[in-house]
């Protein structure tokens, strides 16, 4: 399993497209939002709020990208090739999930580092630790959603579905524009999205509160849904192979 994770990580680190769009873009968007003063309100609060938003966006994007990669692997016959090695199918799924959990790290870290170095965001060590842990662990449902798409769809459709899902969920979840400024009906929807639950936990910690139970439960609910979806996709792909 370690060998598999290592191989997958080497592939991600050499993926220039991912490094540019997955890691650099959230940072660039963060700097544009904060330094050009596009977001109204207190500068320091914006720097903090958008840092969490864009770190969350980066984490989600990397998590989905992992699933898109799986769609490509399937098209290349790599999934079938793995089936012809002694590696157990469950090991492969677990390995791919772990890979997803590792590749989100640089995307999240890059934005947090930019927040500290460029916008001088200051938080207590406890807040940093909580935010990093929540942003990191909270990507698991999105990794599973991406893998489900990767298993179930063709390579091209998986790429489109994952891009649409990460973008759509980010927008509706309030990562690009705070949900407070949404019309009432959209805000109601937003509060049920996994992205909102995911980012809201860290927003609250960043502004000195505890994560709301509602956000945690919403995200856990989606974890169950996406986990079941990934499992279904995997089983279906297994029968087709």
């Amino acid at each position, binding site marked *: 399993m370690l*060998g*598999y994770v*290592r*191989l997958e990580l*080497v*592939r991600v680190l*050499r*993926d220039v497209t991912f490094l540019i769009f997955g890691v650099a873009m959230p940072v660039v968007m963060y700097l544009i939002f904060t330094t050009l003063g596009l977001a109204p309100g207190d500068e320091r609060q914006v720097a903090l709020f958008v840092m969490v938003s864009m770190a969350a966006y980066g984490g989600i994007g990397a998590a989905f990208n992992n699933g898109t990669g799986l769609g*490509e*692997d399937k098209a*290349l*016959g*790599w999934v*079938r*090739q793995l*089936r*012809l*090695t*002694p*590696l*157990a199918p469950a090991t492969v799924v677990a390995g791919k999930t772990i890979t997803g959990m590792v590749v989100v790290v640089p995307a999240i870290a890059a934005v947090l580092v930019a927040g500290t170095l460029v916008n001088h965001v200051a938080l207590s060590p406890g807040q940093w630790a909580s935010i990093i842990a929540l942003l990191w662990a909270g990507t698991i449902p999105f990794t599973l959603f991406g893998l489900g798409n990767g298993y179930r769809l063709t390579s091209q459709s998986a790429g489109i579905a994952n891009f649409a899902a990460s973008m759509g969920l980010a927008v509706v979840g309030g990562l690009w524009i705070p949900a407070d400024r949404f019309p009432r009906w959209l805000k109601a929807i937003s509060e049920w999205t996994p992205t909102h639950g995911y980012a809201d936990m860290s927003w609250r910690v960043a502004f000195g509160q505890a994560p709301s139970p509602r956000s945690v439960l919403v995200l856990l609910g989606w974890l169950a849904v996406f986990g079941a979806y990934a499992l279904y996709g995997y089983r279906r792909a297994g029968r087709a*192979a």
Partner: protein
Amino acid sequence: MPTGRWAVIPTVVDMSVNAVSLEEVTKSFGAVRAVDGLSLDIPQGQTLALLGPNGAGKSTTIGMLLGLTVPDAGRVRVFGGAPSAAVRAGRMGAMPQEGGLISRVTVRELVAFVAGAYAAPLPVADVLATARLTDLAGRRVDKLSGGQAQRVRFALALAGDPDLIVLDEPTAALDVEARREFWDGMRRYAARGKTILFSTHYLEEADEHADRIVVIDRGRVVADGTSREIKRVAALTTVSLSVDGETSWLGRLPGVSMVEIRGRRAHLRTTDSDATVMALAEARAVRDLEVSPADLEDAFVALTGRGAASPSPTTAARGAEEESAA
């Protein structure tokens, strides 16, 4: 990973168990019966060619053998157990017809990863050498030519040092040079006493590289034997000579199944060219004698009934069984 305990397993393996055993295996896709009651036993250590035209059922048979496709009926056994068990135990390696190569890794990284998935793999350097990849080890897998990529697939199949290696049309789409290099590597692997099954529609490859050829067509075995036996069954060795006058006696010579007179030359089709030639010599009839060895391609056409040639597939199959029993 490789430990003494694992390494000894191949030496205590029961050699009397067939590497592969297919019993009356059937598989349909919709209305198409791809494999139709196919039975085949492959003893350990044999190099067997599965020969057949496109659509004969070769890939489906291999898919069932590898446990990727579930048969509708019949039984598939690999080393006495289920195919998936043989894969999990690292006893079966496979080279699919295409695919299996991912982007952004080097040849060495990929081979080392696959080798690492097995309990007792070959040293990576040996795998690279056998597949003639040593010079390409640092190259990215997605930047290789077709022939080089095919050698990587071969390397992945043998990396775990499996006892049985299954190759689905390993040389399809390779040029002559790449094909020669591929078979060089294959021979080195076979020399270590491994069981090899490869499918091909290149007749000369089956002829040159296999101990045994199984011809399949429409999902059934139509002939089974050495290439010599298969040629003989199809009775296509031709003895030709110049003749004058009466020729009817030629048809009564040993082995002759058909006589054709074209101008002043008689062409005799024979199942036993030695006996035919001896008889001609005794009759002092040898004049401008030529023996044209059976072309396996003609035999193949005859056997699969996809041409105008003589024996019916069923006759040929029965003949083949008698031949191999003898």
